[in-house]
């Protein structure tokens, strides 16, 4: 019973958050494109979802059908698992066991697998190129990502996200580990393949891994992608911005505000920075972010001692 309740809880949180992020995205889109006097922002995501629900799915010649259908569900599930490892308020969490942050990291690295399978299974050239791009970007970003994340566990002397939040009572990690949050956010863009790192589903691949899907599959994929972004923002808020800690307002509200803030930053970056070349992404990950992340680890370790 309890398990069922928590599943429903996570699913609801994910859906609501996804809708809100979609609205934020539409709003920024309107503002940047100078589309004055448009009021349909709140309706827009719902309308698009409804249309996709009414569409039939599509087939390519000899796709890997099971994998093709499962990949969007897998991505959605990974977003949910990742979100489940994060306390939304003091001691309110679903799966923050002794090593919650490792669970989160594991789920996020599996995103790479979901996207690769999604692109591979379509048996079509643009999706396949998208899959290879995701593999390259994910490989280069996974180590800085994990390092920046695991560093926040040093002051807490624990791998549980709850303990990490509690350890920021006096001072948030964003101050204590100034290198952590930037590295985390950049790599998070790669794992939610958003904005400057929107490589697998890029426009120069006519939609990349989504180029051959339509209808419900496309809807699930888009929702799941935003869900991953939400999970990444929530973890950023928990690991660097003190999660539910904060004056006056109740904890869950603080968590929501901080998560929305980080999500907005990432979505905003998508409309203001051009998509990077895959080569630059790999270069950035290995030669810039990796050393910075290592310095971050050493500094924080020294500070903790």
């Amino acid at each position, binding site marked *: 019973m309890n398990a069922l309740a928590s599943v429903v809880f996570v699913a609801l949180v994910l859906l609501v958050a996804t809708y809100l992020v979609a609205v934020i995205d539409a709003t920024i889109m309107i503002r940047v494109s100078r589309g004055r006097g448009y009021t349909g922002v709140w309706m827009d995501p719902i309308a698009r979802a409804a249309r996709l629900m009414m569409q039939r799915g599509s087939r390519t010649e*000899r796709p*890997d059908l099971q994998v093709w259908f499962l990949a969007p569900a897998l991505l959605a599930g990974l977003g949910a698992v990742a979100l489940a490892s994060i306390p939304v308020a003091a001691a309110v969490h679903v799966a923050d066991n*002794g090593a919650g942050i*490792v669970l989160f990291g594991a789920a996020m690295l599996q995103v790479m*697998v979901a996207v690769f399978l999604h692109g*591979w299974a379509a048996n079509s050239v643009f999706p396949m190129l998208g899959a290879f791009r995701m593999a390259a970007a994910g*490989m280069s970003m*996974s180590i800085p990502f994990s390092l920046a994340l695991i560093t926040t566990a040093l002051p807490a002397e624990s*791998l549980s996200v709850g303990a990490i939040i509690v350890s920021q009572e006096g001072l948030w990690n964003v101050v204590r580990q100034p290198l952590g949050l930037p590295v985390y956010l950049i790599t998070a863009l790669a794992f939610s393949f958003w904005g400057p790192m929107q490589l697998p589903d890029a426009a120069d691949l006519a939609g990349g891994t989504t180029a051959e899907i339509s209808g419900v599959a496309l809807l699930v994929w888009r929702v799941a992608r935003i869900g991953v972004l939400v999970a990444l923002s929530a973890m950023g808020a928990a690991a660097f911005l003190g999660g539910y800690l904060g004056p006056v307002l109740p904890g869950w509200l603080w968590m929501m505000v901080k998560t929305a803030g980080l999500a907005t930053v990432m979505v905003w970056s998508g409309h203001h920075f051009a998509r990077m070349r895959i080569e630059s992404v790999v270069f950035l990950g290995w030669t810039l972010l990796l050393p910075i992340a290592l310095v971050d680890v050493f500094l924080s370790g020294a500070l903790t001692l």
Partner: protein
Amino acid sequence: MSGVIDLLFWAFGASAVVTGWLVFRTDSMVRAAYWLMASFVAVGGILVLLDAQFLGLILILMMAGEMTIMAIFMVMFMMNPAGLNPMTMVHQHRASIISGAGAFIVLALVALFANFLAEPVPTGAEPTVDLGVELLGGSMLVFETAGVALLAVMIGAVALVSQQGRFGDAEAGSLEPSLETEGP
């Protein structure tokens, strides 16, 4: 509660074995790689059930990357990696089956009939914390050795694959070997 645990354990165990078996049964190389990853994920679940959360999760975390690399290598090096045309690429098949089954039977017999001392993990223990203390305490040397070994391997691997390796161009002295067996 332990009923649920048992159920989960058998579910994980069965899926680990079945997916491990499917690795060598599928035609699609990408599927093979990710069946193997599924097996690892199931094993990770088993480890979590065995109170080794950290190990289980880190295993899943590691395998995402490693199996993606595997899949890409399969796509690179195998003709028809999508398995659009069925093929079996095996040799000494019967011998392999026999030795595989033999290994299983021997180990299974050991597992069933050897008697091990029963000292389970005490309830309320914090294995993750203990492991951390151990890694940076008593067994630091082992841990560091593993790290250094990995570093050496990274350097060695790069030296091996770089086209201009330590011993000059990797192409040097390359020749296409024939599939015919030399001599009787």
